[in-house]
């Protein structure tokens, strides 16, 4: 079986999710036999050849062109698919990152592969590929089948461990030609660093949509202060403008591993869970007893934040 992973360079380095895609690729290889190839496109991907010489990875293909410095859908999808065509793989694995969400459907289209996004696992059966997906915010799972023996899947960052053990890998360097399409990439903007770094705290009090009011957010601040911690949050709090982006925990925002992670009104979307599940102790308060956050919590408290939070603060002050 020919297995191809599409890697990515993010903020000047190979993204963590690239190694996770390789882990799944290597698993499929161990189950079915075959060859594992990683394709990495960029302005100067050769600088990563040593890092990406990994046990289990047979071929590393580095596609370079100065025009590939910043991602754009058309240049990336055409150069990567041209390369994949030569390999004629059975399965292509792309991380479901901001780049993967944009890029993968175009690659699938150019190659005529069906695409299954946001997969938790995949297996090859007699009828074709069968993927498991986590849906409805983690409350349900579905099994999705595509006919035929070819598929492109995207996987969620944080679902698989990285494959990193160094070894010899066959490296192929190619300069590719790019003809610019309709989309013109301009620049990457980095965030201004003007807030605390939530990854540095032993205790995080993390608030989500269920926090309900700004008054409760103030209580959360007080709670965090009392515990020598900081306040972090899930996405809806940032969307509402209650906390800056720098406080957001999630596989697409910041990944944290504090000693204690206390969630207040966070239901536990996958993106959030994959950004905090490795915390030492997780204590969650949510009024929905079916909230997926409880699945990964050491202590699950089923209660309304509005009622419990003020009382809890009083208790802790004693």
């Amino acid at each position, binding site marked *: 079986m020919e297995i191809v992973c599409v890697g990515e360079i*993010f*903020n000047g380095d190979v*993204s963590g999710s690239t190694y996770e895609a390789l882990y799944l690729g290597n698993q499929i290889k161990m189950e079915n036999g075959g060859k594992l190839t990683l394709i990495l496109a960029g302005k100067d991907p050769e600088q990563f050849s040593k890092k990406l010489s990994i046990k289990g990875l047979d071929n590393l293909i580095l596609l370079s062109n100065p025009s590939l410095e910043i991602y*754009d*859908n058309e240049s990336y999808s055409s150069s990567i698919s041209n390369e994949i065509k030569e390999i004629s793989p059975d399965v292509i694995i792309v991380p*479901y990152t*901001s*780049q993967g969400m944009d890029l993968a*459907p*175009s690659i699938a289209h150019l190659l005529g592969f*069906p695409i299954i*996004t946001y997969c938790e696992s995949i297996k090859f059966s007699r009828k074709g590929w069968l993927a498991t997906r986590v*849906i*409805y915010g983690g*409350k*349900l*799972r*579905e*099994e*999705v*089948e595509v006919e035929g023996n070819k598929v492109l899947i995207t996987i969620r960052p944080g679902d698989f461990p990285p494959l990193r053990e160094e070894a010899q890998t066959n490296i192929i360097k190619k300069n590719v030609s790019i003809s610019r*399409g*309709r*989309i*013109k*990439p*301009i*620049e*990457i*903007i*980095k*965030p201004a660093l003007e807030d605390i770094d939530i990854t540095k705290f*032993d*205790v995080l009090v993390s608030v989500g949509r269920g926090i309900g009011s700004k008054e409760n957010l103030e209580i959360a601040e007080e709670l965090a202060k009392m515990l020598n911690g900081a306040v972090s949050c899930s*996405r809806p709090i940032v*969307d*509402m*403008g209650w906390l800056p982006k*720098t406080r957001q925990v999630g596989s697409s*925002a910041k990944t944290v591993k504090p*000693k*204690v992670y*206390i969630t207040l009104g966070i239901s536990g979307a996958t993106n959030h869970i994959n950004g905090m599940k490795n915390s030492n102790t997780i*204590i*969650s*308060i949510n009024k929905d007893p*079916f909230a997926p956050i*409880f*699945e990964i919590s*050491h*202590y*699950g*408290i*089923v*209660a*309304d934040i509005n009622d*419990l939070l003020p009382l*809890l603060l009083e*208790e802790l002050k*004693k």
Partner: protein
Amino acid sequence: MEIIVLIKATPVLEEAKISEDGKSLDTSELKFFINETDTYALEEAILKKEKYGGKVTVVTIADSSIENDVNEMIWESYAKGADDGIFIEYSNVYLDPYAKAKILSDFLKELKFDLILLGAQSTDTSYSLLGQLLAKSLDLPYTTLVSSIEPSGNVLRVVRELEEGLQEVLEIPTPSILTIQSGINTPRYPPFVKIRNAKTRPIKKVPVESIVNDPGQYVKLKRVRLYIPPSKGAANIIKGEPEEIAPKVAEIIKSVVPR
């Protein structure tokens, strides 16, 4: 600017129930609303119309069994500022993003528009595929996870949200398809009186069969099973009256927080 906004009916789900076929969700007791990121797409379209003129048309494909909720979604869109609403109805068939892209592509290719907007991801099936597949089908450029749109000459200057707070700026011509990230704006809540008035306005209903025959044939991602994952729950569950459990929770916090 002529903008089409694709909105999806998604349910609020607490305790899920699976239908007897083992493949579909029992929706009989569920209430459906506009998918969260689609509300941001709709707001963005209305803001652009208010600033530059033009028209906003909302289009949704949904099962006719949830007709009442879909009507309310469209009325809500009118109350917010949408001009037209189109409800493409189907029944007794499961449609994946491929089938929906085929239907929409056949339907929309007859219409004139500058921009198609939709949410970057749905809270139900989370494929994040429809916009991209539709773009391929209509041969339009697309980009995803958009957090800002500004016209600049005859192109759009668009910002995409990346990981760790980074953003990418790019230029994309029109017509094109953009999938919208939450937080791009603050969706408005229309006053009740506007919603009530909106209910007198017509909704264009289009049976899916009038666009394509047997839409099920375009499904590529076949759902063979839907299930509730076995719950292990939290290691320790605490419930009860707030007064009762507050001391217990305080004790737990004290015992694990480093001094």
